[in-house]
C-alpha cells in the first residue's frame, strides 16, 4: 500500500488537474457504493436474523474485513486500489488490506519475526493514534462531565 511512496509522490506532482478530478470522482463513487452495500447488509441482517442494529453493524464490518482480507491474499485487491485509491483505502477494507498485505509480504521471515511483528506495520499507526486521541478526548469529556 505504501511501498512505493517516493515514486507515488513524484508521480503525483506530475498529475494533471483532470486526473485529480477523475480520481476524486472515482473515489466518491466506490466509497459511496461500499457505504450503500454496508447499509444494505445491516438492513438484511436485521430483517433475516432478527439482530439488533448494533450487532448487525458489527457483523457487517466483520464481513467487509473478511472480503477485503481474502481478496488481498488472492491478489486482485491491489489492482482495484490502484484504480479506486481512497475509495477503498478509507473504508474499513483499507485497514484489513494493510494488515493482510504486510503480513503476506513478511511471511518468508517466519511466524514470529515475520508475520507476528509485521502484521500491524501499517495498521498500527491507526490504532495508536486512535487510542491516544480517544484517551485524551475521553479524559477531557469525562472531566467536563455530562452523560453519553
Amino acid at each position, binding site marked *: 500500500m505504501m511501498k512505493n511512496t517516493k515514486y507515488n509522490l513524484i508521480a503525483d506532482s506530475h498529475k494533471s488537474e483532470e486526473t485529480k478530478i477523475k480520481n476524486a470522482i472515482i473515489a466518491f463513487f466506490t466509497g459511496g457504493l461500499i457505504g450503500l452495500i454496508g447499509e444494505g447488509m445491516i438492513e438484511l441482517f436485521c430483517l433475516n436474523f432478527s439482530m439488533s442494529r448494533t450487532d448487525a*453493524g458489527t457483523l457487517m464490518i466483520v464481513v467487509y474485513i473478511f472480503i477485503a482480507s481474502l481478496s488481498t491474499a488472492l491478489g486482485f485487491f491491489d489492482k482495484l486500489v490502484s484504480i479506486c485509491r481512497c475509495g477503498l483505502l478509507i473504508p474499513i477494507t483499507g485497514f484489513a488490506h494493510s494488515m493482510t498485505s504486510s*503480513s503476506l509480504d513478511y511471511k518468508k521471515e517466519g511466524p514470529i519475526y515475520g508475520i507476528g511483528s509485521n502484521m500491524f506495520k501499517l495498521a498500527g*499507526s*491507526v*490504532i495508536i493514534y486512535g487510542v491516544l486521541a480517544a484517551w485524551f478526548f475521553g479524559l477531557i469529556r469525562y472531566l467536563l462531565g455530562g452523560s453519553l
Partner: protein
Amino acid sequence: MLLFNSFLFCGFICFISQIILDNSKLTPGHITSILVVIGAFLDTFNIYDEIVRRVGGGALIPITSFGHSLIHGALAKAESVGIIGIFMGMFDLTAAGITAAIIFSFINTLIFNPKD
C-alpha cells in the same frame, strides 16, 4: 433514505481524502490516522453519534468510525466504573473488527503466498 445517506456520507469522506491525497505530500497512512483522530474528536461532543443516527451503516464504514468506537466504549465504561473505565473500555466496541482482521489476515497468510 438511510441507503442514500450512506452512499453520500461514505462517498464524501473518500472524495475529501482523495483530494487531500492528490494535492499534498501526505500518504494514505497519514490520512487514515488523521481521520481516526477527527472521528474521536467529533464523538467527544456526540456529533458523530448524531451522524450515525442519521446516516446509518455508511457512517460505520469509514475509518473515522474507528475513533468514534474507541472513545464511545471508553466513555461508556467510565460511566459505570469511574475514571479507570477510560482505560478499561477503550477496545470494547472495536474488539470485533480488530480480532476479525487479525484472524482473517493470519489464516489468509498461512494459506496464500504473496503475489508480485
